[in-house]
């Protein structure tokens, strides 16, 4: 009887597909968990590069690794206070 019901609900081709899909998703997150230290280094380097060209609010700068579904993105929110005058254009 139990077998009948499990068969009935297994139209997606067995529970292994569920397992695979769950694993795939969780591993995207697991693998994306980079250390806070690395994120800090990344932040400092981004500030350095950007401030060559514009004035930014360093205290409000946010850098995060976002993963939704099976894609991953490095999201940076960098408030610009002003543009530097181009010395050589």
């Amino acid at each position, binding site marked *: 009887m139990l077998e009948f019901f499990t068969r009935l609900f*297994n139209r997606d*081709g*067995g*529970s*292994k*597909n569920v*397992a*695979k899909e*769950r*694993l*795939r998703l*969780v*591993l995207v997150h*697991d*693998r994306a968990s980079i250390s806070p230290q690395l994120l800090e280094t990344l932040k400092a380097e981004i500030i350095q590069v950007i401030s060559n060209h514009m004035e930014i609010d360093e205290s409000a700068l946010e850098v995060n690794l976002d993963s939704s579904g099976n894609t991953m993105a490095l999201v940076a929110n960098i408030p610009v206070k002003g543009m530097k005058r181009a010395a050589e254009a």
Partner: protein
Amino acid sequence: MGEVIVITSGKGGVGKTTTAANVGAGLAYLGKKVVLVDTDIGLRNLDMALGLENRIVFDIVDVTSGNCRLRQALIKDKRLDGLHLLPAAQTKDKTAVSPEQMKALCDDLRQEFEYIIIDCPAGIEQGFRNAIAGADKAIVITTPEVSAVRDADRIIGLLEASELREPALIVNRIRPKMVRQGDMMSIEDIIDILAVDLLGVIPEDEMIVITTNRGEPVVLDQSSRLGQSYRNIVKRILGEDVPMMSLDEEGFFGKIRKMFGMR
């Protein structure tokens, strides 16, 4: 110079110790000089898997802290000529040994043995760090369950960060019938997710309970499929190209033998 191979998994209870015992015994059976090192300090078990629990005098902490010479702590197996065990300490904890001490120990063992098999504790803390410190190669064990595969993925990442690249995977406790029904991840599914090389597949088999009860490595049992699966792994470690065993039912003769209660 010997080769140091660490057997690890992240998750507990997936078969690290059993695999270490069988790989070690299998290598010794083929005439290699082998030492098995139990690094699971505080939770000593490899001695029982090998049936050597009554012969321990000194342990790994005695060696690293200089209480005894390395030779005094090594237990020689009576069934297999080349097989030796360096047992874990049972009354200390994982911090009793440092990665540097472990590295030095592996280098000493390298001088005398062809294969040094390290049985790693579960987890990713100091016990794991110690176990991998002196290793040249890593074998990762998993079972076809989501938690074990997830932990294996984490371990593979940590191994690669520690310069132990290209670990080889053993999938333990696969149940061919459930795989056929689509209710268990197949070897292909697991390899697809973890993206590592496959070293071997071990089917789920009640026999492992019996052989472990007796303290006799099943790899020595010439008649069983389970023993064969471990022997294949041993041969692959030695560089032989052995095809993966078919996981389908054991065939006509196997069924007949089962009918008569023969193994």
